[in-house]
């Protein structure tokens, strides 16, 4: 390898038929597949528990659908800002990249704030807890807090991850693997959005 090439070696060179882009992208997809199993089995467990529990309340009557619909809209918007940020770094537009990454992070923070507000209302005003609630089956609260809490942790991690990539990518001079870094965090963020789409449907609307 020439000195020039080695000096510029800042991208993954391990190309295989499976990973022409980068090992990082394949690794992220493998991680997301495992994480999808975590959420999938949580939701499958929810379905089983709900089907065998008597007096399961209708979630759309006791949970805040309007607020949650707005939260869904917020995550969708943040996904759009994420792909726009990725597009920006592909086109080497630093200012646009930073702006849209900040918008994505802001969307995530607002989502977490709204979820905290929702939890606070359900716990203190509606008396809903992990082991009991006034609406019906005790496991209604358990499953709700477990699933939304697990997702909320993912959003929290995603916000931290986004912030770290924003700082890191903002310092480099558009090295090619900045695109890979941003692409990978984007995959994670879209996954978080995708899971929320399913959680909103199964936990709140059905």
């Amino acid at each position: 390898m020439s000195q020039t090439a080695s000096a510029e070696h800042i991208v993954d060179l391990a190309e295989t038929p499976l990973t022409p882009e980068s090992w990082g992208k394949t690794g992220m997809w493998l991680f997301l597949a495992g994480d999808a199993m975590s959420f999938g089995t949580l939701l499958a467990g929810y379905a089983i528990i709900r089907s065998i529990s008597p007096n399961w309340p209708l979630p759309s009557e006791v949970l805040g659908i309007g607020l949650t619909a707005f939260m869904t809209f917020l995550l969708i918007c943040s996904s759009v800002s994420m792909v726009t940020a990725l597009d920006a770094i592909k086109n080497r537009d630093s200012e646009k990249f930073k702006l849209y990454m900040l918008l994505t992070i802001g969307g995530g923070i607002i989502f977490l704030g709204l979820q905290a507000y929702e939890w606070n209302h359900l716990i203190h005003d509606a008396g809903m807890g992990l082991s009991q609630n006034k609406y019906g089956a005790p496991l209604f609260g358990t499953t709700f807090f477990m699933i939304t809490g697990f997702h909320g942790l993912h959003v929290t991690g995603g916000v931290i991850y986004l912030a770290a990539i924003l700082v890191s990518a903002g310092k480099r001079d558009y090295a090619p693997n900045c695109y890979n870094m941003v692409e990978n965090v984007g995959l994670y963020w879209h996954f978080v959005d995708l899971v929320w789409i399913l959680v909103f449907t199964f936990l709140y609307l059905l």
Partner: protein
Amino acid sequence: MATETHDDHKVNYIGIFWWLLALTILEVIAGYPSTSPQYPQALKGFLLVGMAAVKATLVALYFMHLKFDRKALSFIAFIPLVLCVFVVLMTMPDF
């Protein structure tokens, strides 16, 4: 050799956004007790799950770029769906 992997597929992200927004609104209408008409629970479930599946597919294909990436990544992404459906089907006797 540096791996220049930035594909040039032009995706209309705003168009996808409008589809996602429209489906979300339809889902809320279908699921919200006061706005949804009285119709069988099975139909409601079918509509809501169907719309959620379409939204998830749009996010996966366009935002996560699976439509333009190698099929190996689609295969990796598809496996959890198969396994989760399997889990639900295998536990159905307990329903």
